[in-house]
């Protein structure tokens, strides 16, 4: 009854990344399997966000290689990653502030839209049909995330929790096969967290989307992840199923060392 965890789709091998001499990631390797929820945890500054940025090509690692669906990617550009079906959300909400919820989510479908500028200008025939067809898809996302009542609200006016939801919506609109979530529950209250958890599980379950998740809330991570990678100061100190990781002495000391 549970979803089938499949083969490895994403493989990170010996990734090292530094900014002007400061090492952000040191020789990190791990893999992500089809349909699984894979969490990356670690104290602040452990290099979690940098890891996501390497996966979808915002940062280019100095060493190591990333293999996605059998293809080795060097100097991957973010928009090419998007084309291959990788979508993501950001730690600090990166919505398009001047646009409505609907338009924000519509942008998520830009890769699937094929009409050109001239067709758009005329807004007739194919362009119009395409717009409507994708609006329908976007409405499904809106329905899925239960944000019907705010669909035409400018995102800047929304409370934080809802903005995070809209950002997830924009990522989902692309119908990604790999979804990278950077602290989707940061700054949320308990109820919002529960909702977000439910959405993440539903996405994973209903669409079979593989998810790489960065999250601080240990309870949530241990609950919903299939496997967890633990980073500390840019190095991998643990990797495995939640229970395994929980009892890993390195992980415990890293957490005790920082949080107390």
């Amino acid at each position: 009854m549970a979803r089938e965890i499949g083969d490895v789709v994403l493989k990170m091998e010996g990734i090292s990344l530094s900014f002007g001499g400061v090492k952000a990631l040191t020789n990190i390797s791990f893999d992500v399997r089809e349909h699984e929820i894979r969490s990356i945890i670690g104290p602040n500054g452990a290099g979690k966000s940098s890891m996501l940025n390497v996966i979808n090509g915002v940062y280019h690692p100095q060493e190591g290689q990333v293999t996605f669906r059998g293809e080795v990617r060097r100097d991957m550009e973010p928009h090419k990653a998007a084309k291959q079906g990788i979508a993501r959300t950001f730690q600090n909400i990166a919505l398009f502030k001047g646009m409505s919820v609907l338009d924000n989510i519509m942008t998520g479908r830009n890769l699937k839209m094929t009409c050109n500028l001239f067709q758009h200008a005329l807004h007739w025939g194919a362009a119009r049909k395409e717009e409507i067809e994708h609006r329908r898809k976007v409405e499904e996302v809106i329905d899925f995330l239960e944000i019907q009542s705010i669909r035409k609200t400018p995102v800047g006016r929304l409370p934080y929790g809802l903005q995070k939801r809209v950002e997830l919506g924009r990522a989902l609109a692309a119908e990604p096969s790999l979804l990278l979530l950077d602290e989707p529950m940061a700054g949320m209250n308990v109820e919002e967290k529960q909702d977000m958890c439910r959405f993440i599980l539903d996405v994973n379950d209903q669409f079979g989307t593989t998810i790489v998740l960065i999250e601080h809330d240990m309870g949530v991570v241990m609950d919903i992840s299939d496997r967890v990678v633990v980073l500390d100061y840019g190095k991998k100190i643990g990797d495995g199923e939640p229970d395994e990781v929980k009892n890993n002495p390195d992980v415990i000391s890293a957490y005790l060392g920082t949080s107390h």
Partner: protein
Amino acid sequence: MLYREAGQFKASYEADQQIFPILQDRVGVLLLIGFFALAVPLFADQYWLKAILIPVLIFSLAAIGLNILTGYAGQLSLGSAAFMAVGAFGAYNFMLRIDGMPFLVAILLGGLCAAAVGVLFGLPSLRIKGFYLAVATLAAQFFIVWALVKIEWFSNYSSSGVITAQEIEILGFAFDGPVSKYLLTLFVVVVMALLAKNMVRSTTGRMWMAVRDMDVAAEVIGIRLMRTKLTAFAVSSFYCGVAGALYAYTYIGTVEPEGFNLDLSFKILFMIIIGGVGSIMGSFLGAAFIVLLPIALDVTVPVLLGDLVSASFVSNLQLIVFGGLIVFFLIVEPHGLARLWQIGKEKLRLWPFPH
């Protein structure tokens, strides 16, 4: 107050995604167009047509062009006038050098020339942002004006690059009077405004705005920054180019490259700031405001202050008022007249409630 929206429900996405989803707006806009197309030619005198309505329309078009680039795609440009010049000289040369060139095709080709030049000067936008880019567009401003003066071929070897627009004839009908020129301008501007509105409310527009609001996120969802920015440059310059061609053909008649100087570029920038950055409607409001303001000052100041003031005082006053208004709008209403209009409309929709 005037709005009666209850019962205007949308049963299809077509209906929901109209440019004016509210019936009263649709009617209002049609009435407005009808008024300007039918009533104005009957009643307006030559001065109004030549000195106010035609320039307002042309500058509106140029402002739409700049708004596409700056307001929607977020790339600041200080060279709009130069692209107008390219359009004007382009159209002139097509008319001059190709026999039987239809006028409308010539201005579109003029616009395309401007678009090509726009893309060329837009190339730096791939690597540079913000002020740097604004400065780069100044290069376009200076270089283009210089080239049009110095390369005499463009002006058919006239002195200091002055060109005189040919007669306009479409399907055998000569557009020689102010009324016919006005109607022609109105037609082109309305059609192009509609096309612009369509662009900005479709994927193209959303990609522009995405790049404007947060380029990193835009790239991550698959938007190609280069292509998007260059498209904005091309479309924007095209609009400016067509506006420039109209400027030469239906407004001034005889133009020189120096007429398309930095001051004109600033004027267009002011139009979108005062009219509303990121609004097609605001482009019209801003153009009308900037064209009418000096006229209003010219008329009212001497009346109010009598002979005390000299002409130079009025022109300084103009500078001060322009400058002051820019600062004022940026502080008080950064989205300009369009936002004021929108707020007013919102109030009417919610009347009698305040919010």
